[in-house]
């Protein structure tokens, strides 16, 4: 089954949502069926939403083994974080 029914990752944007969020995965024979299955499994047919499906094989993930060299350097260089200036009073949504 895994040969004919590959795994797909599902991203859903809710009606008032700003971006697509990973909702889960499913098996489907092709993209059209993956979309339909995603609708059944992850949206309960709420209207006005957008669904993306992507074959899992198309996604390249960062490796957990390389996590330290990958992410750690940014954490110990405080000058990378723009937190040293005061926010003007008029700015609310920063």
């Amino acid at each position, binding site marked *: 089954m895994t040969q004919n029914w590959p795994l797909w990752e599902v991203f859903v944007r809710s009606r008032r949502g700003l971006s697509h969020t990973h909702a889960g995965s499913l098996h489907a024979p092709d993209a059209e069926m993956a979309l*339909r299955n995603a609708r059944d*499994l992850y949206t309960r047919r709420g209207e006005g939403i957008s669904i993306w499906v992507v074959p899992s094989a198309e996604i390249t993930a960062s490796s957990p083994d390389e996590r330290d060299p990958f992410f750690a350097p940014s954490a110990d260089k405080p000058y990378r974080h723009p937190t040293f200036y005061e926010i003007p009073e008029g700015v609310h949504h920063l």
Partner: protein
Amino acid sequence: MNAALALGDDALVLSHRLGEWAGHAPVLEEEVALANIALDLLGQARVLLSLAGDEDELAYLREERAFRNLQLVEQPNGDFAHTIVRQLYFSVYQHLLYERLAAGDGAFAPLAAKAVKEVAYHRDHAEQWVLRLGDGTEESHRRTQAGLDALWRFTGEMFQPVEGLDEPGSGVDREELRTTWLTAVTETVERATLNLPTGPQSGGWAAGAGRQGLHTEPFGRMIAEMQHLHRSHPGASW
């Protein structure tokens, strides 16, 4: 109210047949899709039967001869292809019928307007599967063609007029419905590299007097199972 019973029984009986797939579908995703369709149909059945009387009494206490559903929807599930073909034949018909009812100003217009969105999905689901099965492997092609052939004779009944549905102003014209249905189904079936039955045997005899209360043998067993609990404990509430 004859028409509400006819439409309500179609939805109720097909919903029950699809419910029988629970736990038995080929894959988990299809399990969910079939259950979804069954739930949509059950919802439609509840509204329609409530128009005709008490929904539970109508569903659980009528004898076989009092049901008004098409013989098509009571046909056993068979294999997955057989179920899908039954879905194709019926949901294309139901979609076209509800579109017309929704556009008319009859008593069923509000209900049809709501249900037509659900039914459009059922139709799409069936069409997608017919394409994949018909144009899939040799085995899936053979099974789908067998389903098309076996169920064909039950399709004629869909185009008999129903009292209370086909009055002037309802927006339903059975002949137009038949032509539109045939065009749509033919298109899908041919794209799927399959064929609708042709020749002297295909149109001469249409089975089906379900609307008159005459049903096929498997239907008796189906409602015996459906009604068993209610008949064992009449009047109980749950």
